[in-house]
């Protein structure tokens, strides 16, 4: 089998992992090999599914001894198998990089022989790229759950980012669909990465010469929609993972059919909008001060597909609004639908010198239509009825009590 055929098989097998961004690591060109990262992440192309191509994302091999139902590479699926040699992966990475096709490599693998053996193979590629070829581009390695602590330590010396995939939102889902993977083992790998990273960061505070460890941190991904787990379950798991392991990012991959999928899986792709809403909620949790429990309710555990989660929350909380753009604290501004994180910063900076009008917000590209019922500017005071009316329609809240309590006057 030639390299091109292997590439077709092993890129195809890697396409279900959404975590391919190359941001978060700054790496200066070292003058001895090719490659640097400016920390921003660069998409060198986009594929027909709208995803960014930033890294050479492949598996070292799609042979796997595990039998995870949701995974295309599980041992029981009759797909075509292939295996790259480390040298082949290294040349592909360097050759593609030199032509400016990619920012670096994202290397994952089916689990062969044992987690340790697999991890060693992955490390081998990264280590050669860094030490022999002085490669300065981005490297993301998959941390194989259950691999020994020493190997995780070594992997982080060469990789900008490590990720151990949580795979499915709940332990119950894992038992059903990935019997060989246990959330305890996955999480203990995450914990090893965190612990080692904190040690390394501490060492670097003492001496800047100390080696870096996974400078771009760790991430994980979970498949959404393969099981009946609700968005509330998913966001709760996300909160737990962010809190416990300081993950940089969680990638939510909507389940989609793939060749030779197990008959127990859904036949249809999870709506992309569900994925989108989860990402929005994830942002709200990380940058806007929302908690998982605020974004859904036990009665309605799934996010709305037709409305963004911030608007849903706003409609259900008329007592919080309206927010005065010229006076409210950052935390309150962040909760106004239609105003993004960056614009909150700009508003805070502008209003020290200039009282904001509606037209000013328009110039900042605030989504006025969404925001109007929730904010006060020098020339705008929302009609209480609008908020009350919308909240009644969507959240079935008491129409008058919270509104009058909040405002006193209209």
């Amino acid at each position, binding site marked *: 089998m030639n390299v*091109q055929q292997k*590439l077709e*098989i092993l*890129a*195809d097998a*890697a*396409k*279900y992992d959404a975590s391919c961004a190359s941001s978060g690591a700054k790496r*200066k060109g070292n*003058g*001895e*090999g*090719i*490659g640097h990262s400016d920390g*921003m992440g*660069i*998409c*060198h*192309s*986009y*594929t*027909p*599914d*709208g*995803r960014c*191509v930033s890294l050479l*994302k492949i598996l070292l091999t799609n042979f796997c001894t*595990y*039998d995870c139902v949701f995974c295309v590479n599980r*041992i*029981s*699926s*009759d797909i075509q198998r292939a295996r790259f040699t480390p040298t082949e992966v290294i040349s*592909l990475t360097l*050759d*593609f990089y*030199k*032509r*400016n*096709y990619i920012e670096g490599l994202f290397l994952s693998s089916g689990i062969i022989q044992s987690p340790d053996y697999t991890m060693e193979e992955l490390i081998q590629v990264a280590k050669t790229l860094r030490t022999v*070829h*002085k490669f300065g581009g981005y490297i993301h390695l998959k941390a194989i759950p259950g691999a020994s602590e020493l190997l995780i330590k070594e992997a982080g010396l060469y990789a900008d980012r490590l990720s151990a995939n949580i795979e499915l939102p709940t332990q119950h889902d894992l038992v059903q669909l990935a*019997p*060989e993977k246990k959330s305890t083992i996955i999480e203990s790998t995450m914990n090893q990465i965190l612990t080692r990273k904190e040690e390394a960061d501490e060492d670097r505070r003492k001496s800047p010469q100390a080696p870096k460890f996974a400078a771009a941190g760790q991430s994980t991904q979970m498949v959404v929609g393969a099981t009946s787990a609700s968005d509330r379950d998913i966001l709760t798991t996300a909160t737990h993972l962010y809190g416990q392991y300081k993950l940089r990012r969680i990638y939510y991959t*909507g389940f*989609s*059919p793939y*060749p*030779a*999928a*197990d*008959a127990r899986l859904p*036949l*249809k792709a999870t709506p*992309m909008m569900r994925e989108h809403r989860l990402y929005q909620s994830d942002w709200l949790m990380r940058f806007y001060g929302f908690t998982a429990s605020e974004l859904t309710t036990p009665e309605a555990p799934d996010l709305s597909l037709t409305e963004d989660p911030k608007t849903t929350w706003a409609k259900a909380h008329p007592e919080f609004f309206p927010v005065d753009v010229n006076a409210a604290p950052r935390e309150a501004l962040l909760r106004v639908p239609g105003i993004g994180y960056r614009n909150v910063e700009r508003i805070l*900076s*502008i209003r020290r010198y*200039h009282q904001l009008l509606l037209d000013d917000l328009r*110039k*900042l590209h605030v989504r006025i239509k969404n925001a109007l019922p929730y904010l006060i500017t020098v020339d705008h005071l929302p009609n209480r009825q609008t908020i009350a009316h919308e909240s009644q329609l969507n959240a079935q809240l008491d129409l008058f009590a919270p509104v009058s309590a909040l405002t006193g006057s209209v």
Partner: protein
Amino acid sequence: MKRISLEPDFNTWRDAARDALRLGYRPEEIDMQDATVLNTLDLALETSDTPTGDPITTPHTSKAFLESAKFAAVHRDPQRWNLLYRILYRLQANRNLLKISVDPDISELERLESQVRRDLHKMHAFVRFRMVLEPGDPNARPIVVDESTPTEPEPHHLVLATPTPFGLSRTELPHCDPDPNATPTPSQPDTCEHFIAWYQPDHRILPLAAPFFAERFSIMRWTILTPDASVSWDPVSKQLAFAPGLPRESAPAEDELEDLWRSYYASIYNPARLNPDAMRSEMPVRYWKNLPEISLLPELITKSQSRVSAMVTTQQQQPSAQPFVPAEHNLTAIRAALPSCKGCELYKHATQVVPGKGAGHAKLILVGEQPGDQEDLQGEPFVGPAGKILDRVMNELNIDRSKIYLTNAVKHFKFVQRGKLRLHQNPRMSEISACRPWLLAELDAVHPHVILCLGASASKSLLGGTFALMKDHGKILETRYAKQVVATIHPSAVLRARDKESGEKLYNFLRDDMAMAWQAAQKPVLTSV
């Protein structure tokens, strides 16, 4: 109104602006135009070009303004010099002006700056180098390259030949002269590879973009051509050399790696998530001409739908015995239902299905791999040569065969016909998992204390794919199928042993593991509270 015409260069503007401030020009009294843009207003009648403002001899600027201005200056907007002057002038009176993003001048500045930044970012992303001058192919020269007359043994030498109205403008590129005796390293390769890209940015950003490529590809010899200017990097002297612009045809037409890249591109997208609108919004059509992979797009997009339906069909047809397994898990119902199974292809060729056999509530259950030739003909498990070995073990251990339950992971014989012989074939993983619902139903019905797996397939089916038989045989493991699962070798391994000695060794393995399993099965199971 005073009119001045400026070269498109930030420092030129800076000098002009400083002079104008010093002379006291108010922004509305001066018009700074781009010398490269034809100006139709030149014909307008001049009234007066005398400045009326106060002279500003020590103008104030801020770092933030200079930073933004540097970006806005390369924008092609013909009004940018005037805008920058207006802001500079207003900054003298209002030092916080820059922070008021809603001011019309400031928001215009921010607009220009962000468009330039975006253009830069896209250039970093979409420049595609093509390799020329591979060693051993001295004749392969792109049009852009006009070699100086080679006087032997002249090292590789490149000249960018730019056609201009006044003839060719020639820009010499540094020599490549690798030392043939040195051992090549990544930073000192033994080749004179030269990478050339053609790119057309929206704005005049090449000088701003070049340092990015110089840092990233510092050990490579490369050139970027744009219609306005070109730039080359010499990895030895670490110098950038700017030269005039060149048309697209000057760049090499392809790179042999592009096919490989296209393979990657075609494989890495998910046809079940087709979303060309999202793609177009991130990668507008005007960038497509540089990207070798774009030629694949029409086909990838039109084929997505059929690929997805094909996947769904195979998923629906994924072999599984599940639909044939009765809801009630008792041995009678299972035996009655088994002959109807069409869970996978195997039923088609086998003589009959081979159900498990033995005591209904046996404390020990033996799981083999698959019926063989004899079993297929007789319809009973373990009646062939491997069964004979099992019988011998059980005799030695005083185990009554009717006290245990014997079955297989796969219930139909798989073989290929060779003349009169029927050669056993290993079942595929998909067949083992297709048949697994039968095994699970039997386990549920018998509810044994101990499961003994015979051979690797049965072990992996119940103990997971990573189970290593030779390392972990004879150990009692807990699984979700039973509290105690033990694995051992398949009795046919004893038959296939290469000599008598190893045959005995394997036989002893089998006997000891079986003895252990049998003993464990006699003890009451400890149920945890």
